């Protein structure tokens, strides 16, 4: 894929791109339209009752400061996944500029003009519609313009909650190490923002009367685009599937499901942070996940048996530059202390403690090290600093914490953790650029996402986990000067899962059963 040029990628994916652009615009416009419907009357209200202005603007301001991902997270319990939570979140971001500018626009109308209007016998309604709103219009449109640009930006995050949009390409690209894919999402998003900004700027500059002519057509356009989006996003498939962006693009993922099983489940793209919960709450029926994830147990999910073996098991092991190992001579020995200390059930249990019992990674790490007699009190060393990275899911946080305690207990090195890096590409780029020194990686990801060899090679080396490990280790040394240290001992593999109850009801035990169920009418 990396040899492919950007234009080739775009041409190949133009249908998907078009859908995402429509989704993106739909999200933006629909939320903007709702924000105008709510924000403008609120702005008018607080311009009338100035006492309320402080609290209303204050609340809108606080909502604005909630980080967008967190806000999307809050939306899920209330609105499930899909377009609704995304639109509500976007609406909240768009509110402040619209309320504030409506308020400012009205309060800044020349008092002599409003006095003249009153003196001529206009009532409140006439004053508002004939004088205040027309004069406040340029300021109000400036607010809508700000809101539109903010929304185009934040809408990229909508893909976290399966609402689609250009975020699918952006975050897919980050997970799959595909610069083309990132650009195919990012460039249109930027263009949309600029285009929208300029279009509204033209409206803002043109006189009030031309806006008046357009005043019916603008909402109509907003509603049509929003409606098209809603129509597109409603699906009537038997099972609602949600896969992570990474799973979507991997051979041991959606591609494999399609080519080996002939299974097309029309998946939504969704962030793995919310996927399990969504399955538990019946917003999704079928999800992709990791076989060792603690939430499988926590949410009572059933892992479908992979009867055609498209999810080969992979080792987890720390990846580190050979140069770094030379710089920190004690490191390799220390990290390898963990080798073989895990197996699948141990890892699943640790994940369960984090995901279900809500224990902190620190506590889990310490308990684990004590149990395996590896724990030593930190030496509070003052030597050079080692930076540990982790991806943004529970297992990686726990592993990073275990490594930290290990290094602090056995060496004089100081440790810094950089957890929650949002995808394989970000972790790997951080490693290559020495922003982190090592992180736990999975051989499958190394093979399919980073090295991307030919299909034949993949087939060849996927025959056993050991084979994969050896191939990946060899290639990484050759291509990047990076080594894979000894595997931790547990296997991680992708898995398809459903709620246990539903799987029982549908009598689905393996992926072929699922295929049969979906094919039957």
């Amino acid at each position, binding site marked *: 894929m990396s040899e492919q040029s950007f234009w080739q990628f775009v041409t190949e994916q133009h249908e998907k791109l078009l859908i995402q652009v429509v989704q993106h615009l739909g999200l933006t416009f629909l939320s903007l339209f709702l924000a105008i419907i709510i924000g403008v009357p609120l702005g008018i209200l607080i311009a009338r009752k100035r006492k309320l202005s402080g609290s209303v603007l204050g609340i809108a301001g606080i909502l604005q400061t909630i980080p967008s991902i967190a806000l999307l997270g809050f939306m899920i319990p209330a609105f499930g996944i899909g377009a609704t939570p995304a639109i509500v979140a976007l609406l909240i971001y768009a509110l402040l500029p619209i309320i504030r500018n409506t308020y400012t626009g009205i309060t800044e109308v*020349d008092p*002599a*003009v409003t006095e003249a209007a*009153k*003196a*001529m*016998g206009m009532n409140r309604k006439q004053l508002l519609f004939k004088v205040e709103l027309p004069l406040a219009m340029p300021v109000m449109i400036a607010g809508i313009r700000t809101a539109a640009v903010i929304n185009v930006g934040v809408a990229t995050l909508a893909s976290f909650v399966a609402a689609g949009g250009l975020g699918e390409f952006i975050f897919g690209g980050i997970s799959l190490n595909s610069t083309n894919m990132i650009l195919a999402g990012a460039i249109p998003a930027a263009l949309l923002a600029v285009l929208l900004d300029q279009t509204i700027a033209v409206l803002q500059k043109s006189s009030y009367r031309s806006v008046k002519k357009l005043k019916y057509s603008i909402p109509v356009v907003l509603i049509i685009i929003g409606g098209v989006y809603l129509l597109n996003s409603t699906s009537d498939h038997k099972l609602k599937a949600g896969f992570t962006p990474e799973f979507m693009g991997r051979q041991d993922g959606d591609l494999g499901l399609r080519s080996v099983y002939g299974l097309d489940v029309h998946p939504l793209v969704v962030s793995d942070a919310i996927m399990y919960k969504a399955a538990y709450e019946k917003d999704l029926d079928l999800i992709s996940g990791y076989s060792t994830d603690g939430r499988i147990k926590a949410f009572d999910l059933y892992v479908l048996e992979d009867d055609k073996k498209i999810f080969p098991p992979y080792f987890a092991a720390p990846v580190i530059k050979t140069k770094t190992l030379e710089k920190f001579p004690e490191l390799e020995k220390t990290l390898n202390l963990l080798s073989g200390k895990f197996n699948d059930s141990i890892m699943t249990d640790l994940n369960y403690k984090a995901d279900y019992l809500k224990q902190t990674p620190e506590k889990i790490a310490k308990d684990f090290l004590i149990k395996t007699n590896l724990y030593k009190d930190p030496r509070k060393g003052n030597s050079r600093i080692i930076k540990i990275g982790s991806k943004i899911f529970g297992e990686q946080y726990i592993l990073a914490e275990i490594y930290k305690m290990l290094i602090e207990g056995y060496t004089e090195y100081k440790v810094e953790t950089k957890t929650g890096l949002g995808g394989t590409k970000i972790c790997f780029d951080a490693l290559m650029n020495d922003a982190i020194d090592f992180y736990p990686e999975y051989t499958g990801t190394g093979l399919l996402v980073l090295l991307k060899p030919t299909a034949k090679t993949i087939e060849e080396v996927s025959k056993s986990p050991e084979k994969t490990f050896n191939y990946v280790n060899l290639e990484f040394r050759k291509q990047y000067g990076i080594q894979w240290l000894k595997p931790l001992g547990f296997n991680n593999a992708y898995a398809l899962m459903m709620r246990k109850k539903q799987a029982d009801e549908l009598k689905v035990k393996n992926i072929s059963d699922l295929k049969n169920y979906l094919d039957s009418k």
Partner: protein
Amino acid sequence: MITVESVSKSFNGKKAVDGISFQASDKEILVLLGTSGCGKTTMLKMINRLIEVDSGNILIDGNNIQSQKAEEVRMGIGFVMQHSGLFPHYNIQQNIAVIPDLLKWNKKKTADRTLELLHKLHLSEDLLSRFPSELSGGQQQRVGIARALIADSPVLLMDEPFGALDTITKADIHAEFKSLEELKNKTIILVTHDVQEAFDLGHKICLMDNGKIVQTGTPKEMLYQPKNDFVKNFFAQNKLLLEYKIARLKDVAFLVDSNRFYGDLQFSENTGVWDALQQLSAENSLSEDYENLVKAFNEYRKFQIV
């Protein structure tokens, strides 16, 4: 007729208007005169309920304004303000037509009336399609007056209407204003701090200070029978000019050859002495008449000062 009965108004505990009573008769221009902060504008705005009274009554033709809806009260009262208060987003035509639109006049009636007023106020028809910001201060003020006059309401309130104009423009508009037929049968209350304007335009003057009326009277009474030192001092600076302005030819007619002035020179009884002198001084050949009139005025003046 407008009757104001012991009206008071406080802002934040400070009395802006303190127990004021006065009456403005039909076809009369009553001037509320005073320095800034004396409460004259507050008083004016209570008449069309832009400001509500704390206590007291205001009656227009015997009807208490509190018993009607504020919008209805305002609709029957023309209002002219210092800064024209024209709507910046309306062109001149639309600005003048605001009240007709509120009253739902038909287009023809509005257009006819607009043209009529434009001619009376010496405004060009070309202005109709322009916006307020493209007009001079004097033009804007004339448009403001046209807007207030269009519905021919019997009462007109004017809040420092010429305050923002330069002296020359002001003199022009004053002259026009006095000769405007439209205004002759209205009750007008005009607020100003300009003593000359008060004497130029007012039939009756209420001199205000500190929220109270110090003296009410005709210009002549204010000048020659001041109630106290405050009134006397208020006019002291402009006294001589004001005396010339309020004297009419009929006042001094018994001291001059009235045939000459009314006949040959074609002045009328009501021509002001000041205006007559201005015209006579411009012609060298009339210098004798000029001197005669000055002499007569000086004689007349002696009788007035008690």
